[in-house]
């Protein structure tokens, strides 16, 4: 079965601190996709990144970075120098089959000014 685990429910950080969100996935598929979405208080789902199972290259986009390690089935997300606007729920998701997404439970990030 496909499963995504985000163990940390709520994380509070003081502005400018770094925060890392852990994501561990389970799948028997050899081809799959991993995603991170941001859900701000307004409720929409904002796409952040997609990775396919053959691409273990880490990525940096501004203050965001992602660390994909197939050996440990993890796809972790770091926000560097957090800002109040980063306060949101962040979902890790696994894409499989017809690219249906299995979401984790999400990490509520609260950035304290």
């Amino acid at each position: 079965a496909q499963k995504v685990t985000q163990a940390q429910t709520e994380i509070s950080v003081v502005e400018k601190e770094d925060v890392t969100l852990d994501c561990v996935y389970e799948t028997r598929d050899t081809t799959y996709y991993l995603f991170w979405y941001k859900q701000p208080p307004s409720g929409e789902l904002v796409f952040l990144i997609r990775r396919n199972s053959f691409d273990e290259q880490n990525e940096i986009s501004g203050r965001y970075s992602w660390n994909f390690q197939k050996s440990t089935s993890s796809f972790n997300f770091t926000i560097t120098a957090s800002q109040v606007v980063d306060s949101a729920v962040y979902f890790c998701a696994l894409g499989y089959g017809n690219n249906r997404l299995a979401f984790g439970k999400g990490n509520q990030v609260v950035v304290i000014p």
Partner: protein
Amino acid sequence: EPEVTQTPSHQVTQMGQEVILRCVPISNHLYFYWYRQILGQKVEFLVSFYNNEISEKSEIFDDQFSVERPDGSNFTLKIRSTKLEDSAMYFCASRYEVDNEQFFGPGTRLTVL
């Protein structure tokens, strides 16, 4: 930039009533999805739709649910006889090709009284 739109933003209905949630996917996208998110919980896959038919559905998507693409632009989710537990945010998503990210609409909050 093209986006997925959903109407209405909020729907309130009585238990046992039928509701239709509407989505307009991005115009050149080929794959369409519905997901739901019960308040405070993770996002759950309902159904995927491609080439005018359901390609995959979850165990949540029972006989009370149906989807349709009536006119080549709209993509609808119908719940025949709503239950209290159908209260949730319903997200529509679309994507172009197999490995592209899914773009989500802003969601419809359904409240069943």
